[in-house]
């Protein structure tokens, strides 16, 4: 019997973040331009399984996806149980992504993130335009106003996995095949208590970047935005408004897709991603 392995290799990276030792779980596949992938709130790097398995992309890109601390196989730092609650901040998020890129010695990586990841790549383009070769924002907007009471996501008398997945279930678009819809929701069901809620602190409160979008210099760090039309968290309108403020950004709205394009409808998403990656490769060749 021959074992059927995917090309993805996963390892634990030892890294100090905010002065504390962490074990950060990192998956990668392929060779070439580093493409650093950032998952959504309350989920993990399995969302990028299709990108990490795509033979065409792997020919030109070293695709890397890591689980943020508290997510997936990246446990919280020791002492986490003494914290009142977990909260993701813009500062910690930017610093974590840069620390991982530095530890892996990535040269001008392309940062691609979805939702909170789509927001943080805008922060990266703003704060670190020369550290990153380009950014791809999936479901990226400058801000989301709270529209429901997030207390429901973390309380002992409501099952966190069930409620987090049920809250986001409608964010999956109608074009999503059932297999990938429920794989995407499973990740939410597996999230630790309060983690999704803590990520939303960044998404809905701390990560507001509305006032700074015009300062992003796409000549130094190109910005590409892709959003699904059925997303009511970061709506197509939110993405189009962000694109309007970021001079030089490219933008595309994906039909039938929701908030988790790379995970909910991998085939449709890859069709949208390929031209963006081709443009990024062409831009790098020119530079």
């Amino acid at each position: 019997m021959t074992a059927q392995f995917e090309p993805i290799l996963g390892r634990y990276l030892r890294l100090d973040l905010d002065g504390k030792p962490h074990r950060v779980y990192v998956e990668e596949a392929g060779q070439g331009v580093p493409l650093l992938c950032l998952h959504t709130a309350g989920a993990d790097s399995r969302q990028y399984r299709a990108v990490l398995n795509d033979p065409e992309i792997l020919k030109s890109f070293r695709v890397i996806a890591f689980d943020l601390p508290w997510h997936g196989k990246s446990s919280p730092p020791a002492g986490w149980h003494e914290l009142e609650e977990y909260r993701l901040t813009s500062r910690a998020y930017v610093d974590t992504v840069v620390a991982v890129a530095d530890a892996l010695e990535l040269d001008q990586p392309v940062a691609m993130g979805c939702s909170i990841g789509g927001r943080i790549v805008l922060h990266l383009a703003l704060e670190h335009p020369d550290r990153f070769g380009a950014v791809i924002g999936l479901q990226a907007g400058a801000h989301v106003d709270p529209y429901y009471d997030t207390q429901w996501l973390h309380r002992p008398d409501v099952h966190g996995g069930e409620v987090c997945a049920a809250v986001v279930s409608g964010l999956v678009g109608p074009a999503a095949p059932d297999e990938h819809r429920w794989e995407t929701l499973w990740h939410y069901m597996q999230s630790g208590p309060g983690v999704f809620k803590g990520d939303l602190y960044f998404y809905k409160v701390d990560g507001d970047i509305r006032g700074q979008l015009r300062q992003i210099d796409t000549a130094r760090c190109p910005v590409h935005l892709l959003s699904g039309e059925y997303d009511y968290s970061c709506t197509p309108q939110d993405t189009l408004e962000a694109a309007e403020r970021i001079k030089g950004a490219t933008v595309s709205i994906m039909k039938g897709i929701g908030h988790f394009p790379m995970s909910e409808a991998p085939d449709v998403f890859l069709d949208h991603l390929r031209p963006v990656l081709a443009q990024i490769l062409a831009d790098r060749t020119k530079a």
Partner: protein
Amino acid sequence: MIERLPDLVNADAALVRKGRFVDVTFLLQSGEDAWLVTIDHGRVTDVAKGPFVMPRWTFALRASADAWARFWAPAPEPGWHDLFALIRHKELRAEGDLHPFMANLFYFKGVLGSLRGSVG
């Protein structure tokens, strides 16, 4: 219409199982019309149409008739395809003691979604 809820929900064994811990009466309001929907262990046992004198319910879901019609369209447009999409766009108000609603959110999305394509 709304009166079809018992048939639609009770015929769906997976949905009933999902709601096996749900025992509640909630108010469903569509414009000026309202219904009290009673659920026992995931089965819809009663749908009573208003107007009511002193109605008693645990939580209420209120939207305009137009919003529900769009939600229940066979292939809803973006923004009208999920209860939380309606909440996000301030088209649906969820009020009262929302604990059973949130603790069983997959179930209630299934119950309300069961009317999709059957109302119009």
